[in-house]
């Protein structure tokens, strides 16, 4: 088991190297760089940009050098100093910009995953054990609606109705009076009262999909001989369902952690914009639009690292859950 984990961790190193190279390449792909954007911006404001000034800016940001040198410098600073470079647009170190947001994002993401799992597990189990019952049909119906309605639309609707009927603005993670206040009991309560909204909205589509997965997997397992064996032993039905078929049906659930993590970091951009959440999504969107390459690159690298870590976590969980994986 330990050897297995070690092996997986070592394998992560070349993977991460490849990913960082690729993400750096992707940011460089669109024509122009931050300077092009900056010059266009200045021209739009009616200011002249001289050649000398351009050259000075180029040197300042190190943009004139070949891309592999830029890449090498960037990675070296990350590894040796934990320095992800500087954001051009914000004129601040990337580190100052992202970690707060990464923290909130991780928190919302993890809570959303837990929410999705619990709800999907319970509803999926009910739908499978009560196949073709009214409850199953309702779960299926609600599931498909949840899958079909875009999350941002749900967010807009929720904002609209909570403002219309309750006079509340659930946007953001804090009420205005707590926005810049230090952490206190009141701020926590305020935070938690805002938190459920993004969790529910972000979790809807995932829940709907996971219910379908859970239901289908469990239906496959429910009539397997080992379930009948357990029943023939006299195991009570409730214990039996959870202990035997559900345990097997969990596998695909666990395997999805790998891609749930990064998807929630990058996939919630529009919802985060609509709900005004201080997560990474909106910042990444802005950075990409403005060719703010170190900021964008850092995000993409981070999302990739999360993917790799997510996959590792799901592999470890799977091995822990399923002896066939652990022992072979």
């Amino acid at each position, binding site marked *: 088991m330990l050897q297995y984990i070690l092996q997986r961790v070592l394998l992560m190193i070349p993977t991460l190297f490849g990913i960082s190279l690729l993400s750096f390449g992707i940011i460089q792909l669109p024509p122009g760089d931050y300077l092009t954007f900056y010059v266009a911006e200045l021209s739009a404001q009616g200011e002249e940009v001289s050649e000398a000034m351009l050259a000075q800016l180029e040197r300042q940001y190190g943009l004139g050098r070949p891309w592999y040198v830029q890449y090498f410098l960037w990675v070296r600073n990350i590894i040796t100093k934990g320095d992800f470079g500087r954001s051009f647009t914000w004129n601040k170190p990337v580190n100052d910009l992202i970690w707060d947001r990464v923290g909130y994002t991780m928190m919302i993401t993890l809570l959303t995953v837990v929410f999705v799992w619990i709800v999907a597990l319970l509803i999926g189990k009910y739908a499978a054990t009560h196949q073709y019952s009214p409850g199953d049909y309702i779960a299926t119906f609600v599931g498909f609606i949840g899958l079909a309605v875009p999350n941002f639309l749900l967010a807009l609707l929720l904002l609209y109705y909570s403002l219309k009927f309750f006079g509340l603005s659930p946007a953001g993670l804090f009420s205005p009076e707590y926005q810049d206040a230090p952490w206190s009991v009141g701020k926590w309560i305020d935070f938690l009262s805002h938190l459920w909204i993004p969790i529910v909205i972000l979790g809807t589509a995932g829940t709907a999909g996971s219910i379908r997965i859970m239901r289908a997997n469990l239906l496959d397992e429910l009539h397997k001989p*080992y379930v009948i064996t*357990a029943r023939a*032993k006299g195991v*009570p039905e409730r214990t039996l369902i959870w202990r035997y078929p559900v*345990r097997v049906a969990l596998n695909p659930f666990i395997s999805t952690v790998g891609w749930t993590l990064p998807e929630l970091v990058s996939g919630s951009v529009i919802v985060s914009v609509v709900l005004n959440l201080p997560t990474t999504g909106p910042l990444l969107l802005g950075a990409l639009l403005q060719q703010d390459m170190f900021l964008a690159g850092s995000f993409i690298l981070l999302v990739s690292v999360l993917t790799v870590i997510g996959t590792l976590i799901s592999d470890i969980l799977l091995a822990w859950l399923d002896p066939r994986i652990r022992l072979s």
Partner: protein
Amino acid sequence: MSDNHRTDSDILLDIRGLKTYFHLDEGTVRAVDGVDFTVPRGTTIGIVGESGCGKSVTAFSILQLVERPGRIEEGSIVLNTGGQNRVDIAALEHDSEELRQIRGKDIAMIFQEPMTSLSMMYTVGFQMAEAIRLHMDVSKEEARDRAIEMLQAVGIPRPEQRFDAYPFELSGGMRQRVMIAMALSCDPMLLIADEPTTALDVTTQAQILELMQRLQEEFGMAIMLITHDLGVVAEMCSEVVVMYLGEVVEQADVDTIFHNPQHPYTQALLESIPRLGHSHEGRLNPILGSVPDPYHRPSGCPFHPRCTQVITGRCETVHPEISQLDPRHTVRCLLHEEPHG
């Protein structure tokens, strides 16, 4: 038991008029359609017939293991656990405490597919101890000791280590031994074995059958052996129930079935066994035709379209009643009905 006068208390299980139907969109399949037979204590009874004749469904009905859309429609399955303790299993509530106390305790069951009958997610020991602790008031350690003792009894080498093994680490034959060990761990009065050797290779088959015989002598339980292999029946059983399309067509002791079969279906089954030195020009004698489509049961006697001794004009219209040929030999055939029976 070879006496012809069996008393009531010798009967362990008494099945009367059992009907188990499957309600499908295409129609109702009458998988078990009025089955009567009894299982005497401590003996081995064989249930034989072609695929689809309702053998397994009968066995599953006994523990109420038939899943939707199947349902026990009618009939009684009376278990006599000794003295005046009689329970009609067919009348018990699904998932009731009473039913669960019978499952695994009074009646245990092993299945056709040892490769999938144990969960791959738990150790052999966990699954055995679970059964033991459900039915016996013992501690975890005592359950473990009991499980290891049972593994030893079924001839598994190094049982202490096997206790912690996962089923996928064992061969098919070993898994079936584990199933048997688990089934017998709570000292059941009846072991239902649903084609326990079908999925195993021939050498392993013989070993498992031998093991079952030995354990029967040791534990004294009755065995209900469901099989389509008449060779197995001849070796193992003292009594035989022959089924065709959800009905019992003949029941007798094993000698009578093999040497004096009365139902044309039983005769045809025996004819179809390949025998060394008895070949008719080297060819097999199969039963004519095949088992009819379950949605369209033939009228009258269900076997008449395939029967070589069919009485034209009667067998197509009259459904035969059970005739008692002698105290322990019954047959369901018009050839044997009294003129006004």
